Every structure is written in C-alpha cells, then in structure tokens.
C-alpha cells in the first residue's frame, strides 16, 4: 500500500518535472484575413502576454500557435492536423465560422484535444455533429448556440416590456440575409418568437455577397407594420439599410440590428442614433466592469484601436479560462483539465461570469445570454440585462431626422 503510494508520488513528481520543462502550447485557428478573426488572434495573444508577464501558469510560459483557417473547411481541417501533430499543442481554441467548425469536428474527435471554441453558433450542424456527452466532453463551447441567442432575446424583450410599460410588442419582423447566417437566425427566431408574437420575415442579399438593394425586404416590413423590426445581416448592410429605410420612410418603434460585428464608423452617423442591437460586448461595459475596462484598455494599448466585435473579448476570455483551468488541474492532463474546466467560474470582460453548463446536446456550453443594447451618442449602451444596464432605453425610435 505504502509502496504504491510512493510510486504514485514519484510518478507525479516525474510528471511534474517533465511538465516543468518547456512551455504550455495553446493552438488556435481563426480566419486571419477577416477582421474579427484577426482581432481574435490579437486578443488571445494579448491574454497570453499578460499571463506570461505575471509569471505564466504553474511557472510555465504559455505559447500561442495560430493557424489561418481562411474561413474554409479543408484549410480548417489541415490547421487542426498541424496543431495536433506538428505543434503538439496541449489545448485548442478558436474558430468563428460554423462551416469551418463542422468540417473540423470529425478530426477534432479523432484527437480529442481539449477545446474551447470561440465561434460556431449553428446548432443544427455543429452541435449535431459533436453529439452528446461523453463523446463530446472535450469540447467547451464558449459562444452561444443560435437557439441560446434566440431564447435570450425572448427573455430580454419580456423583461424590457415589464420594466417599460410603454413598450408594447405584438408584431415582430425579421429581415435576414439569405445565406446560412440569416436563414438560421430566421429559423431560430421563428421557433422562439412565433409562439408568442405575430412573427414574419423576408430575406435580402447582403452587400457582403454583392447585394445593394434592400427595398423588397423593407417594403414587406413596412406593409407588416412591426413593433419590433430586426435585421440579421453583416456589418456591410448596417448603414445602407438605415439609409434606405429613411428614404422609404420606414421607421418602426424599435429598429434593431443583429450583425456579428458593426462597422466602426457607424457611431458617427446620425441615422444610427437610438438604433438597438444585439451583442455580447461593447466598450460601454467598461463603465460597469473593471475586467472589461482592463481588457479594452490593454487591447487599445497594444493595437491602437479597440476591437470591432465581441469576438475579441471572447478569445481573450478563452485564454484566461484555459490558463485558470490548467492551474487548477495542475497540468494539462486531459481528464483533469476537463474537470477543471467544468468548474470554471470566470468573471469575464463580457460583464458576466462564465460557467459551463449543458445545452440541448452537448455538456459544456459557456455563454447562453446575449445583451440588448442601443446606440446612444455614438456609443453602444447596454439596456438589458438590467444588472449591467449602462443607459436608460430610448423608446420609441424618433422618426428619421
């Protein structure tokens, strides 16, 4: 008995000694040609540098290896192969596009390297491909699934209507870009909002894909007379949509945009004033959350400008979550690391404490909540959740100036 104990202790010591040499390698893939992907990479590096400067993890330095997935499935697969077999990373993180993630899942399953995913919202493809626990227990999905987002908005509007009695919503219209992102937004919203509200939608071709005219979708919306008008497209669509709405004299009481990122200069446009948006992080959270402020300040210090989307904050969080878990697991042993990650309680720059709980299929879902924000004086102000509210709601949208 004692012999066995000594043996285990020795093994542990040897293991610790081996671990003490070299670095802890984090492998990541993002589309570096895309601004969100690039910001993810920079934010993650920022987190790694901060941790290393503070002495690293368990006395080790972290090393971040990033491979460009180019937003393509086959390149994403090759990236995982490289990270797993050439760089032999201890932990994986990253990702934005669901289309890349779904191609990567089989290869990730082969290696079962502990992964903290910063993107991939499409539940119907990615979550389905991952499958239930325990087969997918190595996968920690930080970004909310599409239905998490839908559910969160549903709760948000419920709460807002309760707090502001003058806000009355019975009809919701969603104008969505015709690609996978827009279509899945529509399906998820229809499933969640359709039961309670009168819900309708129309698709448009995003400027990202060469579209230039939103008139058909806007006319449909105008005829529908929604209390809440939402568009799900890309940053490229934000201002042109507003301009065309103004030209068509379409001004719903609530005008809300749900693109993955906003154009940086939109705050300067008078049209953006009082437009609402969905999101996870905005610079206004700095006013409420010191962690957010620290993240934001050091990001600006390192890169000159602030991040354009919440993805940077998500990647920054992913690195801290991983570092913290490695610390508590006292190493990168797979099982221990998974248990440690399961116990994560990370007060993130997103203004909420991140934990991992089961979602519809997988066991480890991180963020489930979204925020409802509003452009006020060129800034994104948080309206809901009320715990992190930074400014009161302006309602209804004053008609176009």
């Amino acid at each position, binding site marked *: 008995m004692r012999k066995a104990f000594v043996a285990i202790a020795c093994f542990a010591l040897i293991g610790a000694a081996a671990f003490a040499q070299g670095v802890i390698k984090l492998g990541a893939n993002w589309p*570096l*040609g895309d601004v969100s992907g*690039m910001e993810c990479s920079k934010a993650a590096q920022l987190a790694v540098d901060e941790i290393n400067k503070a002495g690293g993890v368990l006395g080790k330095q972290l090393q971040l290896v*990033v*491979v*460009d997935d*180019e937003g*393509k*499935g*086959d*390149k994403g*697969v*090759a990236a995982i*192969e*490289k990270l*797993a*077999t*050439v760089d032999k990373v201890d932990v994986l993180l990253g990702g934005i596009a669901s*289309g890349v993630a*779904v*191609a990567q*899942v*089989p*290869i990730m*399953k*082969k290696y079962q390297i502990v992964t903290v995913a910063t993107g991939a919202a*499409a539940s*119907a*493809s990615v979550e*389905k*491909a991952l499958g239930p626990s325990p087969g997918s227990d190595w996968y920690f999905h930080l970004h909310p699934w599409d239905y998490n987002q839908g559910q969160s908005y549903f709760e948000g509007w419920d709460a807002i209507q309760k707090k502001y009695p003058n806000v009355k919503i019975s009809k919701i219209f969603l104008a969505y870009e*015709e*690609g*996978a992102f*827009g*279509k*899945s937004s529509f399906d998820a919203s229809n499933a969640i909002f359709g039961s309670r509200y009168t819900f309708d939608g129309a698709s448009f071709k995003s400027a990202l894909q060469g579209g230039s005219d939103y008139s058909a979708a806007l006319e449909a919306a105008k005829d529908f007379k929604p209390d809440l008008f939402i568009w799900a497209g890309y940053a490229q669509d934000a201002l042109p949509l507003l301009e065309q709405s103004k030209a068509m004299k379409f001004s719903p009481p609530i005008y809300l945009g749900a693109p993955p990122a906003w154009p940086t200069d939109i705050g300067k446009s008078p049209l953006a004033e009082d437009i609402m948006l969905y999101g996870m992080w905005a610079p206004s959270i700095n006013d409420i959350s010191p962690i957010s402020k620290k993240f934001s300040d050091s990001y600006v210090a390192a890169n000159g400008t602030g991040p354009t989307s919440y993805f940077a904050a998500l990647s920054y969080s992913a690195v801290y979550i991983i570092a913290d878990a490695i610390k508590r697991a006292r190493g990168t042993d797979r099982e221990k690391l998974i248990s440690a990650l399961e116990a994560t309680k990370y007060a993130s720059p997103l203004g909420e404490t991140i934990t991992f709980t089961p979602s519809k299929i997988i066991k480890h879902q991180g963020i489930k909540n979204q925020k409802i924000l509003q452009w006020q004086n060129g800034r994104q102000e948080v309206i809901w959740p009320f715990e992190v509210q930074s400014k009161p709601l302006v309602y209804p949208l004053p008609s176009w100036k």
Partner: protein
Amino acid sequence: MTKAVRRFLPVVVIAAAVVFPFMAGPYPLAVAQSVLISMALAVSWDMLLRSGQISFGIAGFFGIGAYGAALTTLKLSASPIISILLAGACSAAVAFMLGFVILRLRKVYFAITTLALAEIFQVIIHNWGDFTGGPEGIVLPSLIFNGDARSLYWLALASVLLACALSALFQRSRLRFALTAVRNNEVSARSSGIAIFSYLMIAFVTTSFLQGIIGGIHVQIYGYASPDSVFDANYTLLPLAMALLGGTYSTPGPVLGAVLLGVASEYLKLKIPYGHLVVYGIIIVLVILLLPAGLYGQYRKRVKARAAHA
C-alpha cells in the same frame, strides 16, 4: 531526359504518391488531400479545354456531385463509395442533358453559360431547402473510412489517378485527334469526317462525371456540404490557374501546377500569416508573364528546341 526515364517517371511519381502516407504525418496528408482534390479538378478541366471549350462551370458540377453524394447517403442510405459513383452519375446526367443545348456555343459564350449554370445550380440548391437543407447545408453522420487519415488521402489520390487515367486515355485514343482538330479549326475538322458535337459531348460528359466524382469524394472526406462551400468560385478559378501555370493540353501540366500552387499557398500561410494571399496573387501574375506556356509547356518547348538543334 531519355525515353526510359520518361516512361518510368509516372510510375515512380504514382508509387511515391501512394506510399506518401507512410512517410508523412497527418498534417502534410491533410494538405495533400486538398491539393489532390484541386489537382483532379485541374486535370478534368484541361481535358475539355483540349477541344477549345473553356468551362467556367467546374464548381457547378463539383457542387452537384457533392450534393449528389450527400443526398444519396442521407436519403437513400447509399454506402459512401456507391454515393460517390452516383455523384458522378448525377453530374454526368446533368451535363448530358445540358450538353444538347450549350455545346452549340463557343468561346466566351460557352464560358459565360457554364459560369451562369454553376450559379443557377447553387441558387437551386440554396432555395430548395426542404430537399437540400438550404443555405445551412448538409452534415453527414460519419466520414468515409471512419475518417482514417491515410484512407482519406488515398481516396483523394484515387480521384487524381482516375482523372489522370481518363486524361491519358483521351491522349492515347482517337479522341486526342478529334479534340485537337476541333480546337484547331472546326471546318477543317468536319472535312476530316469528325462529328464535332459527339466528341464535344463525350468530353463534356466525361469531365463533368469526373468533377461529380471529385465533389462526391470531397463531401465524403469532409462530411459537410453547403451551397457556399461546395459551389465556391474558387473550385473553378483555382484548378484553372493550376492548369495554366502547369501547362495546358497535357496531363502532367495541371498536376505540376496543382503541386506548385497548393504547396505554395500552404507554405506562404505558415510563413506570412497576414498577407500570404497577396504574395499568392503576385505569384500567379509573375508566372503568367514569365512562363506563358506554363511549367510543363516551357519544358516541352525546350525539349523540342534541343531536338531541333541536334
């Protein structure tokens, strides 16, 4: 290069390609796999080019194949290999039906029409959501060969070998004469008794069949197809660039071009994480300006010149 070397070189290259998985790790295999897919497409495109017809519709038939394989797997529970063959059959059937109309067109008109058809295929798949899964695409329940890296590589290699075999067959049969004559001058070709339409049809259906097979293999390897991913214009432009850089009207040319561009793009990516595509574009421009006949074409010219001097 002596005749003996020229005869054995392909055997050596094929042998090396077959045993490559025993010498290389999973990462080079994964890269090689996607290069092989583009390579097979490049060879297939060149086969039709030999008739003088420039197709801009590679992605269209590749995409039909990908969806053919994915849908037959899901809806008919076809085995992966059968689904790949069905994918080829789908593409070939579509090409055959369209061929009656579009093979009457020439040059820029044929090129534009094939481009437009590829777009139309994509729009149909995109909007026919009940059947095809719509813009969000289709996920296969499992990969072929349970995702074994070596087997996947060999499957991709098989698509290249099939394309090269058919291409060699084109070069060694009367098809070579028919297609060369048609490319050269159609009136003259007819005066030699060549039924132009039939030979164009053979070439068009065969290459579309190949592109369908390659699409089927792609979807079985990656387990996922969406309109954006499999109808990506890059599946037209990349093979085209590869064939031109390597040298057209031959089998070795597109193969060489695919290796060059495929390896260059991956290598550049690791060396220059930001901006590697700039260098990639400049490489294409420079090669076209400096080696207009492509690598293999330049080599053939030199061999010829040497023979003429001797």
